[in-house]
């Protein structure tokens, strides 16, 4: 009766069974916590808006219309985000995907942060070097990245409210050029880093990029903005389809 504890094997650090730790109950509790916080916030904000409505010439009907408009217009984008999230389930597991890609962050930033973090440990997401430890550090990097966005919001919002003019008058040319350069630089480097890994990586990358280009072009030409929302999901699915065919061939 006293034996079993000692007989239990220690958690192996080099295990690549990501989903075993990615579905840890504590992570599910944290996801539920984030959901709960957003629900509480929405309830408080709704009540505050209702109270303030009469003073802003807003009728109860206006409130209802606004709520419904927001809800209806979010259906398409929410489903599009869900498709992207499902595609990433195998890589990160449901709790990480729900809290990072679904909420707080977005696919682009969080997948990038995970890739950068894995790289800092000399590992690559998805292959044999993607151990439980790499997943934990990658998940930490995604989360701390999201936390920094929130921290910046917490610090900047009160400052902007007090004297927005001063902070917003930062050199406009710098504000236009530097962030765009940082974003395109980051994503082009991360993207090109995938190419030397294998021929199928090149194929997946090129197919997905081409599909996204086509979606954006059609969205503009035909005026169909849903193609813009669904672009990422469609590109991932078709890119993965191409990879699957290439692996089988």
């Amino acid at each position: 009766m006293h034996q079993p504890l000692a007989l239990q094997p220690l958690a192996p650090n080099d295990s690549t069974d990501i989903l075993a730790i990615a579905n840890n109950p504590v992570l599910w509790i944290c996801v539920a916590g984030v959901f709960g916080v957003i629900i509480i916030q929405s309830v408080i904000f709704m009540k505050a808006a209702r109270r303030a409505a009469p003073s802003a010439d807003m009728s109860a009907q206006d409130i209802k219309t606004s709520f419904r408009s927001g809800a209806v217009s979010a259906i398409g984008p929410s489903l599009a985000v869900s498709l992207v999230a499902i595609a990433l389930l195998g890589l990160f597991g449901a709790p990480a995907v729900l809290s990072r890609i679904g909420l707080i962050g977005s696919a682009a930033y969080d997948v990038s942060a995970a890739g950068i973090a894995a790289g800092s440990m000399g590992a690559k997401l998805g292959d044999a070097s993607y151990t439980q430890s790499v997943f934990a550090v990658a998940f930490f990097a995604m989360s701390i990245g999201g936390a920094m966005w929130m921290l910046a919001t917490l610090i900047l919002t009160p400052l902007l409210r007090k004297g927005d003019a001063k902070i917003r008058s930062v050199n406009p040319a710098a504000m236009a050029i530097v962030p765009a350069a940082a974003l395109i630089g980051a994503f082009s480097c991360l993207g090109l880093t995938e190419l030397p890994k294998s021929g199928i990586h090149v194929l997946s990358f090129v197919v997905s990029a081409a599909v996204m280009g086509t979606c954006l072009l059609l969205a503009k030409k035909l005026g169909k903005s849903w193609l813009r929302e669904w672009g990422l999901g469609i590109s991932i699915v078709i890119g993965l389809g191409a990879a699957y065919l290439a692996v089988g061939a």
Partner: protein
Amino acid sequence: MSSITSAPTTNNTAMADFNRTTSRWGQITMIAGLLISVAGPLYLVFATGLDIGPAQLWIAFAAVAATFGIIWIVEPLTYYPILGPAAMYQAFMIGNISNKLLPAALIAQTNIGAKPGSKRAELAAVVAICGAAVVHLISLAIFVGLLGSWLISVIPPSVLLVTRLYVLPTVLGAVLVQAIVSMKQPRTTVFALLVSAVVVFVVLPLVPSLAMVSTAIAVLGTILLAWFFRGKSTIAEAKPIHIE
């Protein structure tokens, strides 16, 4: 702040009450969201017997900060004029701002005929984001939490393996095109691709130990080139930095 208003005092106190409530509770809920979201990975790192030192976490953090640190600060700055203070606390916690929350707010404002910048517009945006949040949470819970988890358990292992191996290049291929198209800065794009190609195909094969900071090098290089060779007709206004 607004000393020049003809509105009766009661209206001012009502809006002041709204500002106070959303500001206080926006901060409290956001801090709670921040702590809970970081608690999960920290638990994994320190309480599950994985052998990870603090140094590895700091290095990973530094690598991410070197890549996205500027965006962390610039995004809130550029979204503030559009969202207003109250919605800031909603938007940066719920996420997917540009593709979901902004359209939701704009459509609501149009549907009730609220003038941009007015109090009605501000309230409509907050209420619309609440509506969007409800839909988003429900669809995530059903399609990703329930359906997705079931899907993972039934799809063949070969498909799961392909997904794991190749989902990264498909995400990054699409996101790169998105970033290039939404930024509309051809000159910067050329610099970014050139610098990245040099880093990935020349520098890294020669000095593999730089892999850890390769993205940071590419980001810094692109910023410097884009800044020093910027066009004469510089962009007049700072637009929200986002990927469509």
